[in-house]
C-alpha cells in the first residue's frame, strides 16, 4: 500500500471515530439542552423529598429550567436541604413556591416551581421559603382511612 493511501484510510478512521463521539454527545446525550450556560443556585428546605435524586430536573410550567445539584440533611431543622441550579436567564419572584412532583403515576420525581407575584426576584444563594413536600402514599392512605373512620362514628352511635 502506498503512503498516501494509508494516510487517507487512517484519516477516514479518525474522522469516523470523532464523528461517532460527536453524535453520542449531541444526538444521544443532553449536551445541546443543558450543557453550558450561566446558572445560579437556590436552596429549598423540604419536610420530605420522597424519591428525589440529584440531577433531577427543575421545571416551571412544564419547562426544564434547571437541575437538582445537591441533597443534604439539615440537622438543625430535621428537613432535607435541596440545592437547585437554575438557568441565569430564568428569574423567579421572591414568593414563588417549590414543590416535589411526580411525572406520571410511576415516573421520576422533579421539583416544580410556581412563580409568585412579588416584585423582587430571587438572588443567587437565596432560600425558597414556600415549599411543598413529596406526596407519601402511605400517609395519604392512612389519612383517608382515618377520615372515613371519623365520618363513620356518629352514624354508628345513633
Amino acid at each position, binding site marked *: 500500500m502506498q503512503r498516501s493511501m494509508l494516510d487517507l484510510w487512517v484519516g477516514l478512521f479518525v474522522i469516523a471515530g470523532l464523528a461517532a463521539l460527536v453524535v453520542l454527545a449531541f*444526538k444521544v446525550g443532553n449536551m445541546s439542552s443543558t450543557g453550558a450556560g450561566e446558572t445560579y443556585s437556590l436552596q429549598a428546605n423540604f419536610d420530605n423529598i420522597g424519591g428525589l435524586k440529584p440531577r433531577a430536573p427543575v421545571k416551571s410550567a412544564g419547562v426544564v429550567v434547571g437541575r437538582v445539584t445537591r441533597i443534604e440533611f439539615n440537622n438543625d431543622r430535621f428537613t432535607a436541604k435541596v440545592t437547585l441550579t437554575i438557568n441565569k436567564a430564568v428569574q423567579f419572584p421572591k414568593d414563588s413556591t417549590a414543590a416535589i412532583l411526580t411525572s406520571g403515576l410511576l415516573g421520576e420525581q422533579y421539583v416544580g416551581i410556581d412563580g409568585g407575584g412579588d416584585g423582587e426576584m430571587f438572588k443567587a444563594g437565596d432560600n425558597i421559603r414556600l415549599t411543598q413536600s413529596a406526596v407519601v402514599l402511605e400517609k395519604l392512605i392512612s389519612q383517608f382511612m382515618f377520615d372515613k373512620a371519623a365520618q363513620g362514628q356518629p352514624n354508628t352511635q345513633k
Partner: protein
Amino acid sequence: MLHRLSSSVSALGAQVIDMVLRLGYATRFMLLTLRQSTTCLMRPSLIVRELYYTGTLSMVIILVSGLFVGMVLALQGYQTLVTYGSESVLGVLVALSLVRELGPVIAALLFASRAGSAMTAEIGLMKATEQLAAMEMMAVDPIARVVAPRFWAGLLSMPLLAALFSAMGIFGGYIVGVVLIGVDEGSFWSQMQSAVDVREDILNGVIKSVVFGIAITWIALFEGYDAPPTAEGVSGATTRTVVTSSLAVLGLDFILTSFMFRGV
C-alpha cells in the same frame, strides 16, 4: 510421601515466583516503552502506520457487531418493556447499556482478538526470525521503533472504536425499535437525550475504553516481546494474549463501573 508433598509445594511456589517475576518484567517493559515513546511521538508517521492496522482494519468488524448488538438489545428490551406499557424508554435502555457497558467492553473484546492477537504474533515472529536482534545490531532500539508506536496506536484507536460501536448500536436499536416495531420516534430520542448525561455516561465510557486500550496493547506487546522464539512459543503467546486481555477487560470493567456508577 513427605518428599512428594514438599516437591509439589515447591513446584507451586516456583509457579507463583515465576508469575510475580513476569509481572515485574512486564511493568519494567511498560515503563521502558513510555520512556522510549519520544522517538515515535516525534515521528507520527510510525503511529499512523500502526493506526491503519489496529484501527482502520478493525472498523468493519466493530461496525457490523455494533449494529447487531444494538438490534438485539432493542428486540429483547421491547419484549420486556411492552409488558409494562413503557416501550417509550426503549431508547434509554439501548443508549445507556451501550454507552456505559457494552460499547467499551465488546469493542475491547473484539479489539483484543482482532488487533491484539495480530500484534503479539507479529512481534513474536520478529523475535523468532531475529529481526529485533538485527535492529539492536544496527543501534536501533526495537522498543522505540516497534513497540512504542503500536502502544500509542492501540491507546488512540480503542476509544474511537468504542464510540463507533456505541453509535452504530444505537442506530441498530433505532432501526429495530422505531422503523420495524414502531415505537414512537419522538419519545425514543427525547427520552434518550434526557436520560444520557454527557459527563456521567459518555465521558465515563470513553475513559473506560482508554483504560481497556492500554491494558490490551500492554498485554499483547509484552506477550509478543516475551514469547519463546519458536513456532509453538508464538502460537502460545497469541492464545495467552486473547485470554489474558479478555479477562483483564472484564475485571477492569467491574472495578471501573463500581467507581463510576455508584447509583448516585
